[in-house]
């Protein structure tokens, strides 16, 4: 049953793409249909999110596994938990916002169809729990994004699109290889792995005979004679079982990989320890997307060349997929590698914060500036992940949402300026506050949001990742270094505000610029309202992200303790 509700995320973009392909290539009509298509998805995401918050759900609200070809170990496995629901809601919001921005001129129909396919990939990545299908949807985003940048972008759009494509694909190849290694390093004949009882209680289900199952596998415990026998669901809750096991074999299932976490620690492949090898391969794949310094070179180029709406989608949602992949696949599967190298991972995050911040200080192009600030802000996510405590993990997830709001807003603001002036040079503006007073308020708000002003969403995300990092002795120094990045982001954003908005009007021809229109404001208003709401009442979102993060952190600590 569950899966039929979740299929809204697949059916709507698929049918939407067909519908938009059939409808006439009228820009207004296509845009309106595109916006209308988002609402079922937005509604579903908000409902799921609300249900998760109300139930204080630590696991999957809905989850279904349908075997496709048992002989090949392939199953259509979808599930939604607090993390994926929050990101899906953000994705729907970003899609509405991006659709409100005027689609770039020419080949209207193709543009809207490609956007639908792009979001099909986004939805699938957030929902699929089978490694192979996860990869399919992960890669599905590549082709539409290539065309969206290459056809409708700026003057260097083709080079930027190819750079984006090859960078991402270069990350995907090790990711796929790692997935294969995990499959073949799995126990060929099945093995009994110990499971955390708390996880069985949180994530488990009751099978046909009242027996507990965990991720569709029977939960077993040795009886008096030492023979593994199925565990009754009641016994678990009543605490009668000291330790339980599940039989796991070779699988492409991400959740089965998670169960096998103790197994990976002692497995070798081709004479090498599996866990570090597969960790590095997978980390590469996801880190390109975040993007983590030094794999970030594609991002500024792609951002500058992409049209405004696509920049919004790229910063608002696509970068989050990297963090999501780490949280969903890598962190649960290789806890020991993460915990052993927390300092290094945290340092990578802090490096991105500082590097991106300094690079942003030096940018003359507004879009490049926002792109580097994205790299800097996404560094906080990696920092929180490295801390691997509940606060750090939920902070990283929160920072994803917060950055989705702030970066989108900043790109919209820059888009408005570009729309008027047809250039994006920081030094090409001055005294805009006198000319466009309403716009200036929005610009200032966006800058404050990006700079992490208390009371806005960005502050919560950055603060909780830094606090999380401080709470873990291994990541204290990276945490301190990243904290200095907050000063940097305040520096480059306020400096930009000062140069663009204030001072005398340096270019008299800009006096004729019209102020922000109500339609432009309509695209930005939900982002501003939400970042204010989440800044003042972070628990609204933390209630969904917190339990999931706490559960993951407990799992990681438990697995590491087995050594």
């Amino acid at each position: 049953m569950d899966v039929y509700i979740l299929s809204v995320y697949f059916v709507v973009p698929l049918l939407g793409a067909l519908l938009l392909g059939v409808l006439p290539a009228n820009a207004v009509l296509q845009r309106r249909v595109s916006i209308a298509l988002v609402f079922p998805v937005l509604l579903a995401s908000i409902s799921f999110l609300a249900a998760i918050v109300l139930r204080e759900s630590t696991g999957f609200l809905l989850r279904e596994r349908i075997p496709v070809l048992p002989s090949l170990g392939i199953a259509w496995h979808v599930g939604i938990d607090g993390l994926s629901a929050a990101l899906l809601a953000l994705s729907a919001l970003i899609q509405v916002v991006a659709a409100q921005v005027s689609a770039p001129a020419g080949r209207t129909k193709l543009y809207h169809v490609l956007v639908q396919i792009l979001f099909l990939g986004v939805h699938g990545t957030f929902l699929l729990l089978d490694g192979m299908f996860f990869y399919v949807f992960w890669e599905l985003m590549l082709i539409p994004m290539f065309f969206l940048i290459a056809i409708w972008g700026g003057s260097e759009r083709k080079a930027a699109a190819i750079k984006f494509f090859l960078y991402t694909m270069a990350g995907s190849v090790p990711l796929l290889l790692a997935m294969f290694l995990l499959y073949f390093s799995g126990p060929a004949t099945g093995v009994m792995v110990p499971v955390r009882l708390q996880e069985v209680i949180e994530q488990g289900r009751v099978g046909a005979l009242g027996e507990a199952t965990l991720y569709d596998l029977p939960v077993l415990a040795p009886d008096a004679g030492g023979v593994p026998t199925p565990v009754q669901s009641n016994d678990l809750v009543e605490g009668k079982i000291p330790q339980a096991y599940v039989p796991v074999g070779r699988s492409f299932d991400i959740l089965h990989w998670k169960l096998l976490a103790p197994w990976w620690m002692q497995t070798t492949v081709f004479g090498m320890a599996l866990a570090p090898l597969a960790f590095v391969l997978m980390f590469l794949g996801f880190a390109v997307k975040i993007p983590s310094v030094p794999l970030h070179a594609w991002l500024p180029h792609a951002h500058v060349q992409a049209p405004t709406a696509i920049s919004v989608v790229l910063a608002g949602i696509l970068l989050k997929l990297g963090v999501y992949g780490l949280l969903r696949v890598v962190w649960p599967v290789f806890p020991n590698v993460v915990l052993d190298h927390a300092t290094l991972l945290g340092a990578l995050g802090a490096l991105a914060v500082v590097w991106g911040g300094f690079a942003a200080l030096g940018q003359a192009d507004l879009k490049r500036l926002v792109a580097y600030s994205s790299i800097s802000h996404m560094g906080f996510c990696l920092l929180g992940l490295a801390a691997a405590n509940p606060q750090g993990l939920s902070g990283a997830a929160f920072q994803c949402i917060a950055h989705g709001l702030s970066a989108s807003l900043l790109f919209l603001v820059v888009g408005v300026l570009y729309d008027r002036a047809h250039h994006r040079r920081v030094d090409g503006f001055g005294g805009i506050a006198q000319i466009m007073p309403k716009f200036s308020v929005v610009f200032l708000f966006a800058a404050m949001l990006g700079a992490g002003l208390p009371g806005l969403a960005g502050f919560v995300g950055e603060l909780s990742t830094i606090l999380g990092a401080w709470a873990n002795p291994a990541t204290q120094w990276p945490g301190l270094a990243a904290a200095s990045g907050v000063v940097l982001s305040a520096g480059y954003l306020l400096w930009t505000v000062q140069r663009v908005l204030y001072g005398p009007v340096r270019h008299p021809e800009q006096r004729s610029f019209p102020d922000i229109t109500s339609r432009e404001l309509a695209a930005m208003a939900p982002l501003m309202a939400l970042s204010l709401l989440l800044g003042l009442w972070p628990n609204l979102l933390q209630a969904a992200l917190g339990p999931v993060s706490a559960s993951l952190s407990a799992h990681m600590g438990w697995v590491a303790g087995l050594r």
Partner: protein
Amino acid sequence: MNVMDFSTLLDLIPRELSSLLPELFLATGILLAMVSEFLPGGTRRGTLWFSALVALCSLALSGIEPVGVLQTGLRFTPDVLTQFVRVYASLGALMAILAIAGSDHWKARQEAGEAAILVLAAALGAMLFASATNLVSVLLSLEFLSLCSYGLAGFRGRDARASEAGLKYVLYGGVASATALFGMSHVFGMTGSLELREIGQILSMGGTDASMLVPLILVGIAFGYKLSLVPFHFWAPDVYQGAPAIAAGFLSTVPKAAGFAGLIHILLNLFPSWSPLLPGSALPTFLALFGTLSTVVGAVAAGMQKDARRLLAFSSVANAGTMLVVLSSWITAEAVAALGFFLLVYLFANFGAFLALDRLERHAGESRLDNFRGAWTRRPATVVALAICLFSLAGLPPLAGFTAKWSLVREVLRSGIDGSLGMVSLVAATAVLGSALSLAWAYLGLVRATAVDDVETSETPSVSILSGAVLAFCSIAVVVLGWGWPVLDLLRLRLAG
């Protein structure tokens, strides 16, 4: 010694013939088509339609005709693999003939009917080759296939480049055949048998020494030429550039399927005890590294091309290497099913790509990337189909190329981890997956020229609905087979039986 008295031979002929029903049907069809060319009232289009009908019937017959039990002592021993090649070759021939009938570049030509007959004959050669289990029948069917291919490759005879293509193909092919014949005569001299199975038995008894390697290497080189594997691939770019695009699409797919089927038959018969239990054998490692070399060199060279057809030629070199890699796993039903599925997807994607070029080239052979700039303004649907085929060739999900590559890499790694191939399989798998980067770079060049660059061009080649329908079929197949797991499973079940 394989001595058969005359009465045994007479007794065997009907049994042998009955097992070759689709081939016999196709041969009859070819003869009738040739006659129809010379009928006083016959038209060229008539021959085309008749040939298409023959291919369609052959497809149906190959699909439903059950493959009998393995019969020993015959020159042709059809099995499930043969049936796969029969279906494959008939389908390829049908698509090629329909495409020729619909192509603008062939419309003015008087020889379209002859081309269709050559396509059918090449398909027949491919089918025979895929069931040959005797050195003589291997060589004869290989020559039959090759001769028809030479004819197809040089079809644009008056064009200098086409003549070069035909001549190069003949010369290279002739040398390859001669090498094979030379090697086979050595084999016969050393073992005294022409039957692959008997030769295999003699080999496994250890009745030969290291000098047996020489003829095997010679035969291997011949296969390397025919399958366009590095370093025997140099003919491919020139031939695909000079041949008519549709012929290039056919020649890069159907003979490849036959070649791999023949290679599997030879390997299985010569090394019946080849299994993971024999870790000492260097052959799997050799096959894996040979395939890896082709994959990498083909992919890198494809990335450097400025001509769409040469690009596709090098990508076919890379793909052939990828297919060879999977043979390095001991030949299980899963591995052969993965190879078969890969070949099937490759047929649609590669033939589709060449067909799209045929529809986009203003004059046949004008295939520099620059010539395709702004093609989407003229032929948006063709450009979409081309992009689908190219992205599938690059192995991007959700297209069939990904499904194929996924199952293939899976078998390669399985033979490394479960079998004895070891680290080599990781190298090969990395090369196969990594080469996708270089291939993607190459294809993106073509996609960018056709689908992104906006250069208004007034000149528009006329195109027909028929070739459009074939192209649509190819691209839809590439999309649908992206969910081709049932097909893969079906192949596996048939091969396991």
